[in-house]
């Protein structure tokens, strides 16, 4: 069996609809996920993350290109890939008239797990997701965050070799998000592989071993979060609100990104003092902090991840 859990080559997807020009959602995506890795697909809305995930999880046919799950061709023999995968769909909801306990248990049984295994896994997943207190309440009575946790619990309980999670923590509070992250880390320690999409940069940074930044159906860059941050050209960022008109004065210090409201300058620690002198002389307010994935994303894509 291949060491790659997932690989794609020149994967393309074009959507055709009547009365509208064809839309190219994926424009030759090449991507590899090794067994046991946690990999994040980062991108703005409409970048192609969900399209990729739907193709990889056998739910959408590609227009061209190759994609394999554990060596099985997803397009030609999807039924061979399916026993190895589980998916948290984007905006998926548990059955409203099932409790989280029933939802997880019946799902595991539908995947062929024995009663004993399904029961044990159900309790473990509910506990991890903090759902034990509402485990017997119908999902229709749960909050949006609890429902999303029930969905994640349903899928992580499978312990499938390859898990696809499309925006798994959307609508969750910070504690619940951290619980999900911890559960996903545990799963990869047990041998599962995880590919998730997110537009939470902190989530991608905290959770993924490697990440791919996708924009307009193309992989722009891949690597670890540290690699990407290093590529920005410095380790310190200085935020200068209202300094957009002075961008030329700051260019010599390093990469400058102007988002309209504030100028962000990426600088090495050695040149920070010099930059701060200029900011003080120019009567600018300056906030200094470490470079984050956000700056890396801005540099690579040219736009903020939340920008439509």
């Amino acid at each position: 069996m291949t060491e790659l859990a997932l690989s794609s080559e020149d994967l393309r997807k074009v959507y055709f609809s009547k009365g509208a020009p064809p839309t190219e959602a994926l424009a030759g995506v090449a991507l590899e996920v090794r067994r046991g890795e946690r990999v994040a697909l980062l991108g703005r809305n409409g970048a192609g993350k969900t399209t990729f995930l739907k193709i990889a999880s056998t739910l959408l046919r590609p227009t061209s290109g190759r994609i394999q799950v554990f060596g099985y061709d997803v397009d030609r023999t999807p039924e061979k890939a399916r026993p190895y995968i589980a998916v948290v769909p984007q905006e998926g909801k548990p059955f409203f008239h099932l409790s989280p306990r029933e939802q997880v248990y019946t799902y595991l049984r539908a995947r062929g797990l024995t009663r004993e295994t399904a029961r044990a896994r159900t309790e473990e997943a509910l506990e991890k997701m903090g759902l034990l207190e509402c485990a017997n309440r119908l999902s229709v009575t749960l909050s949006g965050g609890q429902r999303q946790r029930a969905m994640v619990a349903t899928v992580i309980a499978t312990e499938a070799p390859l898990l696809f999670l499309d925006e798994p923590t959307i609508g969750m509070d910070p504690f619940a998000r951290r619980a999900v992250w911890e559960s996903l880390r545990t799963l990869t320690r047990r041998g599962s592989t995880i590919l998730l999409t997110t537009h939470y940069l902190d989530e991608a940074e905290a959770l993924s071993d490697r990440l791919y930044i996708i924009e307009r159906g193309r992989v722009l860059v891949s690597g670890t979060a540290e690699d990407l941050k290093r590529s920005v050209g410095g380790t310190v960022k200085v935020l200068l609100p209202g300094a957009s008109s002075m961008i030329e004065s700051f260019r010599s210090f390093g990469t400058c990104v102007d988002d309209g409201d504030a100028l962000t300058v990426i600088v090495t620690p050695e040149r920070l003092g010099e930059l701060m002198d200029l900011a003080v002389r120019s009567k600018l307010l300056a906030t200094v902090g470490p470079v984050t994935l956000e700056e890396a994303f801005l540099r690579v894509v040219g736009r903020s991840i939340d920008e439509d």
Partner: protein
Amino acid sequence: MRTEGFASSTRAFRGLGAFLWTEVLVQAHEELAMAASMLVQSVLLVFVYILAPALLGIAFVGAIIYSMFTMGNRVLNEAAYIRIDHKANDLYLAGPMSPESYFLGIATGILVVYVAPVIVLGALAAFVVHFTWAQGLLLLGLAATVWVFSASVGYVFSTFFRDNRAIWAYSSLFFNIFGVLPPVFYPFRLWPAALAPVALLMPPSAAAALAQASFGFTELSSGEVLLATAGLLAETVFFLLFAIYWARRTVREK
């Protein structure tokens, strides 16, 4: 690489039992819907009882056929709802469960829950019609055939919709037109003679006509019996096979 559960992809109905049970649990929470599923039939039975009590036996037989036919409407609504609103198809089908099990799980889950009021109807019919075991078994077979047909049609139709609001109108129009207008609740011979073959080729009215003939409510020629039987079986088998094919095909969007 280790997989648990159904590692083999060769079993056509893997996951069916568990998914059927899932649907039973989901549907069983809708007690009011179970009662409401008898609304049209009950109203028509009351009207017949008041206006033409002699036709009550035919109306009871029709009510049983109609009840099984309109289960297709529930399959349509449920399959579309859990696909569009819950993305349940993504959750279940991107895994080892088979597409056939997904379709049949929805269909049979609804049958298991909604057959209860039909059994009550059947028990009441026994008081009114006094049928033999053979006639009862024939009625059961016809009702089951109509259910297979309507559940298959309902599932296939469910895949064409992207919005639940559009479904409500179309599905209730379709199932009520084909379940009420043709001679299901009334004697087959009241239907225009020139259009008799049409009624005999529509599964609910074909089943009703065969049941009426079996109970002695209507006389059918041997040609009509043959047409109704062949039509009903052929359409049912065709739509069942097509629904299974369609369930496999629509796992993946194009």
